[in-house]
């Protein structure tokens, strides 16, 4: 129970609700043969979301901040998380550009190391087996589509 998070998230959800309400005013209000248009459902939901957010905001201001001890007790490993998160984002963005096998190998190698794998040999072996194995089985045996090797490598 993190009251601060609750407060900010209630504001965010209220904004999301408001966005849907405002944007749904631009959608046509009737459909052919019906008095009920495609705008009504999202608009109604947006209004409900705003009301619920207000209630959450009210709940988060009431009550004491008793939850701070619960989350404060655990030490979070931000460095490890941010490295892997950044690696995942890079992986995802470069996947189509560099190709599946190379990117997956690099991503796995880096994150295995970050997560605390000791031996270089084992890390290389597992990441190699995973990336090549998945690519071979999926593309060659199951005839699926994955980004192959980049053209500029020359093969």
């Amino acid at each position: 129970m993190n009251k601060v998070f609750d407060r900010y998230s209630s504001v965010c959800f209220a904004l999301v609700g408001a966005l849907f309400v405002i944007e749904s005013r631009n959608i046509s209000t009737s459909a052919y043969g019906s008095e009920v248009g495609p705008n009504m459902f999202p608009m109604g939901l947006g209004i409900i979301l705003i009301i619920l957010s207000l209630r959450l905001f009210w709940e988060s201001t009431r009550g004491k901040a008793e939850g701070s001890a619960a989350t404060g007790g655990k030490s979070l490993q931000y460095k490890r998380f941010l490295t892997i998160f950044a690696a995942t984002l890079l992986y995802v963005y470069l996947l189509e550009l560099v190709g599946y096998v190379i990117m997956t190998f690099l991503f796995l190698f880096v994150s295995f190391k970050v997560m605390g794998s000791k031996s270089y040999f084992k890390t290389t072996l597992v990441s190699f087996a995973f990336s090549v194995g998945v690519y071979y089985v999926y593309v060659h045996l199951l005839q699926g589509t994955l980004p192959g090797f980049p053209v500029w490598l020359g093969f």
Partner: protein
Amino acid sequence: MSTLQYLADGFYIAMQWHNLLYAFIGVLIGTAVGVLPGIGPMSGVALLMPVTASLTSGMNAEQAAASALILLAGVYYGAMYGGSTTSILLNTPGESSSVVTTLDGYQMAKQGRAGAALSIAAIGSFVAGVFALVALVFLAQPLSDLALEFGPAEYFSLMLLGLCAVSGLGGKSMTKALIMTVFGLLLATIGIDNVSGVARFTYDIPYLYQGLEFLTIAVGLFALGEVFKTILENDNSSKQLIKVGRILPSAKDLKQSAAPIARGSILGFFVGLLPGAGATLASFFSYILEKKWSKNPERFGKGAIEGVAGPESSNNAASGGAMIPLLTLGIPGSGTTAILMGALLMYNVQPGPLLFTDHPQVAWGLIASMFIGNLMLLALNMPLVKVFAKIIETPPHFLIPSIIAISVFGVYAVQITTFDLVLLVFCGLLGYFLSSNDFPLAPLVLGLVLGPMIENNMRRALTTSNGDFTIFLTKPLSLIFLGCAALWLIIPLILKGRGKEVVINEEA
């Protein structure tokens, strides 16, 4: 044709060698998913959904759907078997429905009766699973017939009931659960409106026209969310694993646990039928029941075998029971069944009353394969329980990044866009922050799956009534559903107001 004839046809489909293989892979992975802490049944099924989609891509639609469902359902009930293993050996539940098993299971393991506890859990799960299936076979037809009488107004109210039930029991704060439900429904409105063909909230981004892909969001929220959580919070401390001794339970153990297994099966099945009340709740209820029923309740918490047999049977029976509203009414009652429904919809198979007449292959093949799957699980879990206990020792530094890589592979294989991959990563981030602050994720997924259907039915009902909202109150069945929905939200509030503990269903 009679029900038994249909069932025989189902067995014919389930016994095809590739379906046997899929069922086997499903229950094997399911057991592993249950054993590994950090991946629950929900993320397991979500993770495998794209993989099965690519595995079955060569078959025709009907067969592909049957095979995929056989595999995914295998993961679902397999996880119910596997979850008990870590509860008993490590005192760490592999998933939330095995939380109660730790109370007596770990104590039994400490007394050197780990093998007996594990095998009783497996036997109990088997009996309960078969019981739930038999009930499913006989209830499916009458319930489908009943559901065929429903018009759009009744459907809308019934779905609302499902959503309210899941939100009412969904987490520590009902407000948060309701917010997640509404948020899920709102996300479902993005894309082309399938009644009028108008584009909504797409902002001319081509990827958004077909809506946010359910698969991407489910994998992101559950699988990646849990992975991020483990990366951030896990301190890599390893616990001492208790050795498994003799596996077969003694005659006394069997005698003591026969009645709890029977009670747990029946109780769990009915709890599973209710929307919102899933396996976790069933196992809690069963534990409380066994404690009340027992002549000497002080033995509980100190290694009473009844405390393992009852809850483990009832969580399995509940997962079988939860299939009934999904298959006959088309309404998932929990997060995992919502994901199964998403998988069905991916194959253009609409769960609901017509499932049994339109796609008998899928429906009866699935039911028959669950019989076979349960048998496989019993065979797997009794002699191989020591092997599965080894899975716990998989080094997390290899496991965690692999899950990310599997998620990325799975989503890319089905969607083939970078947009979905980016969405996946951000859903993972969102999933972590929301679930670590007690926002339950199951209602969001449920909202996302039910969103288009609930909207269609509402608009169809309103079209027939010329925009008059009282149609939902004047149809008697619809009124009853709405009443139940309201009660589901109000009763927990009243109980909380009186200061009573309300049992909630974390996960689903």
